[in-house]
């Protein structure tokens, strides 16, 4: 592990921002700290950077304990949420700042900054001041500024929070590519799971100061290990009385279950395939979601969500449909179990 956190704890005035946090990141990986607001992810990032001191625990970078090393000497590049560009310096001056502090030679600085400006695609804008740049451009300058002194760890605090939705998508992929190109180990903080899933090599899910799960996006998606992880990733509906759903049995120790729209398939009554495994329900609402339809279906009192391709004939509100639930996640106190629809197997028929 290139970056390792061991048993970190941090309290602010009685509020536990970090509760026994431990995880590790491999060298060269791009990791995302994902969690709801106030879950402690920014605190963890700032402790890594040295902007906050943990109450207890160890922080190791490249095997060395850095708790007592001041922030400026940890070799960390930090990109702030609202860029924190030096508004009285030019783009060039901003990017060169770290190098100027290190008293590097003028020629070296000139070469390195030019290289970075080319990397971020802002040639010609060296003399501009931050207030003359767009949000996306500012973000890229902040990025270059953090990279200039060749840090061993790059930290980004909600890098896309302040950017327009359209630009955000482009910037995301650009960031991913560029970090891969540069090869620097990076950790970024976000509350947007789409972003985490798309950009990160691995995700660390935080909740109320604790780590819920660490794993690749696919991992967490397919095998959530805690109720929170199951509910947080992907769209999900919590169902309390899942025993009433056809094909599922109420199990001790698991009071609730999580359903994802991908697990729910609605077909017209005449097209029903697994009568035993399916249930009849009424379409309550139909939403247009740009690339698919979202259906809210009332299954005997329980409302579930399903997606329908636009290619198919659309359902109408009030229409009775046949709903097949493939699987769901059972939520225990601290664990999650995947339960398949038992009736499908026993039917022995072909799968669609």
């Amino acid at each position, binding site marked *: 592990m290139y970056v390792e956190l061991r048993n970190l704890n941090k309290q602010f005035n009685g509020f536990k921002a970090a509760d026994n946090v431990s995880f590790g990141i491999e060298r060269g990986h791009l990791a995302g700290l994902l969690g709801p607001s106030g879950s402690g992810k920014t605190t963890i990032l700032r402790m890594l950077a040295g902007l906050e001191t943990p109450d207890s625990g160890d922080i190791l970078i490249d095997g060395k304990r850095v708790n007592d090393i001041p922030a400026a000497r940890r070799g960390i590049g930090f990109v702030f949420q*609202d860029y924190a560009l030096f508004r009285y310096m030019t783009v060039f001056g901003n990017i060169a700042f770290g190098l100027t502090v290190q008293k590097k030679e003028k020629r070296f600085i000139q070469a390195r900054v030019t290289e970075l400006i080319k990397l971020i695609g802002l040639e010609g804008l060296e003399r501009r001041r931050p207030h003359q740049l767009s949000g996306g451009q500012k973000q890229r300058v902040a990025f270059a500024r953090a990279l200039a002194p060749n840090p061993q760890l790059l930290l980004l605090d909600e890098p896309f929070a302040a950017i327009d939705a359209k630009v955000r998508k482009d910037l995301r992929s650009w960031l991913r590519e560029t970090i891969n190109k540069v090869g620097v180990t990076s950790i970024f903080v976000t509350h947007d799971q789409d972003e985490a899933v798309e950009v990160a090599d691995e995700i660390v899910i935080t909740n109320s100061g604790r780590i819920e799960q660490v794993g690749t996006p696919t991992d967490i998606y397919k095998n959530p290990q805690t109720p929170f992880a199951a509910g947080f990733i992907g769209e999900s509906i919590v169902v309390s009385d899942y025993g009433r759903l056809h094909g599922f049995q109420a199990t001790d120790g698991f009071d609730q279950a999580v359903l994802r729209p991908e697990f729910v398939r609605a077909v017209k009554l005449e097209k029903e395939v697994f009568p035993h495994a399916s249930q009849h329900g009424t379409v309550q609402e139909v939403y247009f979601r740009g690339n698919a339809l979202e259906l809210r279906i009332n299954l005997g009192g329980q409302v579930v969500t399903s997606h329908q391709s636009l290619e198919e004939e659309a359902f109408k509100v009030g229409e009775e449909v046949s709903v097949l639930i493939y699987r769901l996640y059972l939520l225990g106190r601290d664990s999650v179990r995947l339960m398949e629809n038992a009736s499908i197997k026993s039917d022995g028929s072909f799968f669609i």
Partner: protein
Amino acid sequence: MRTKVTKVILIILGGLFIASMLIMPLTTVLVYALRQGLTVFTSAITDDYAIKALQLTLLTCCITLLINTFFGVFAAWTITKFRFRGRQVLTTLIDIPFSISPVIAGLVFILVFGRIGWAYPLVESLDINVVFAVPGIILATTFVTFPFVSRELIPVMQAQGREEEEAAALMGARGLRIFRKVTFPHIKWGLLYGVILCSARALGEFGAVSVVSGHLRGKTNTLPLHVEILFNEFKVTAAFAVASVLVVIAVIVLILRNIVEYRLKREKG
């Protein structure tokens, strides 16, 4: 239609207020000053005591400015950039000179550095005269004008936030460099504004200075004190003449302030 009438009325009221409270007194001073002709005017302002008073006023103002700018920047920096216990207390303490009557401020110095004060033996042993001498006047003026610089800077620095400085610190910049490159360019105009306010107040300070001054003509009389003395000696025209010097200085300060305000707004926009 109604809003237009209201607007006009408000403007007229505002104008009347300014005219009666500001313009009229100022023009009265100038009129009275020149009432007995230019020779009386010039002899009044070139009088030995008047010139000494002007010198003392300017000296006090300059030294007060230096002290308050230095400590004001320091105080604002500490309060806005650091979290520490007692921060609120420090902020409140800085505002004390605003809430204390200047006369009390002057009395405080007498009670501390005067013959009956507890610091007197120390001051005596160093052979310095504090109260009833120039240092006392400077101290009193500094006290009374202290909050101006820091109060101007604190909101500006707070609005700036700590992030830029954090970013700079993260990259290894030390305090002085951070101040020079990040903080100072931002507070430049706010600082200048605070300095101008401070000097305007320092030039005109009467109460606190009057208490600690001792009214020694030619030695511990500032310009405002000198005006009072002239007035009390039936030399009304001379009093107004000297007062008009203060008015001129005040107008200059006002103009400077407007220029700075204009530049401030331009920077923000």
